[in-house]
């Protein structure tokens, strides 16, 4: 049924369809296009997956700090992207079964925002998690440090020097075995001013 596609869906059309806000007539028109366009079907599939992975609070917030939201969405995109489209993944059948996981994502507790301390990362525990993988990034998206622990806190080694007043990002991923894992949102914090971090 696929013929040559003259025009792909506009971004607003994809959004309206994914968020189920398109009027009936527009929805049918979009579905008629999707029936013949593999590109747009793939896009809708990917966006639905990303939207469903976001916390409910993020989905409903209207007042969003744009740079942080842009960073969070971009990170979600790029961390999801290579698993679906990276080298070696060529079979459509790879998408036949959706990822099955009931793992709850850990929640970063500290440091978040204007931090009192920046040398110890703390997060909520996840039932069944046997190891947590943590990554710390600087504002330029460089990886400053990464580590693994079975605990729910990690102390940065002395070799990781955080600059007072600078912005950093970190996330933690809980691994529960059988290839299942769940990662937290990327959170931002500002290293404390005016005092040694060690």
């Amino acid at each position, binding site marked *: *049924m*696929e013929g040559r*596609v003259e025009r792909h869906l506009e*971004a*607003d059309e*994809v*959004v*309206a369809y*994914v*968020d*189920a*806000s398109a009027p009936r007539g527009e929805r*049918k*028109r979009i*579905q*008629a296009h*999707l*029936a013949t*366009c*593999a*590109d747009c*079907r793939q*896009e809708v*599939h990917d*966006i*639905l997956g*990303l*939207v*469903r992975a976001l916390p409910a609070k*993020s*989905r*409903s917030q209207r007042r*969003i700090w*744009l740079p942080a*939201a*842009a*960073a969070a*969405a*971009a*990170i*979600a*995109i*790029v961390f999801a*992207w*290579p*698993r679906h*489209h*990276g*080298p*070696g993944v*060529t079979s*459509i*059948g790879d*998408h*036949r*079964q*959706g990822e099955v996981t009931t793992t709850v994502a850990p929640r970063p507790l500290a440091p978040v925002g204007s931090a009192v301390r920046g040398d110890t990362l703390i997060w909520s525990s996840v039932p069944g998690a046997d190891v947590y993988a943590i990554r710390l990034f600087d504002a*330029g*998206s*460089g990886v400053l440090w990464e580590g693994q622990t079975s605990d729910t806190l990690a102390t940065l080694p002395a070799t990781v020097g955080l600059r007072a007043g600078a912005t950093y990002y970190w996330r933690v991923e809980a691994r529960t075995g059988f290839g299942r894992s769940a990662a937290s949102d990327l959170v931002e914090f500002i290293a404390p001013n005016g005092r040694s971090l060690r």
Partner: protein
Amino acid sequence: MIARDHDVAMDGYTQVLAALREDHCRRLRKYTPRPGTQFTTWLAVVARRLMLDYYRRRTGRPRSIDVERRAEHATRRRLEDLVAVELDPDRLTTATDMSPEAQIRLIERREALRESLEALDAPDLLLLALRFEDERSIRDIAAMLHLPTVFHVYRRLNAVLATLRQSLARRGVTDSEP
């Protein structure tokens, strides 16, 4: 593989952020709230498209998945062939195995199925494309069609296939013999 994916991911992240910041966040400022839609959904669409452009420039692959699929699956059967197998699994013989009369009959059957498919509503056509062309899981199909549960997908799929059988019967295609 993981390390390489992470490096590509972080490169892409940097590119996407840079593109979003360009010209005083011109892309972000183009956002217009619409009733019932979420900013995060819109941002995900924009960021994915930027990432796709970056990835295609980086790997030199064609921009369109349609082009890639046609190239990579040049011998892949059409939707009506895939649906035909679903409707009648016994019809797996190829045209080259048949007599000339049987080949003509097979062509007529495929034409009847094509006409029947074209008579379907858009949601039903999309359902078949997701199920037979993309081989999506039932759970994914439910999400993409905004159906409440996977059972709705199964019921709808069975109903569509029954509709196709009836349509074929009206077009004189009722038996399994060519």
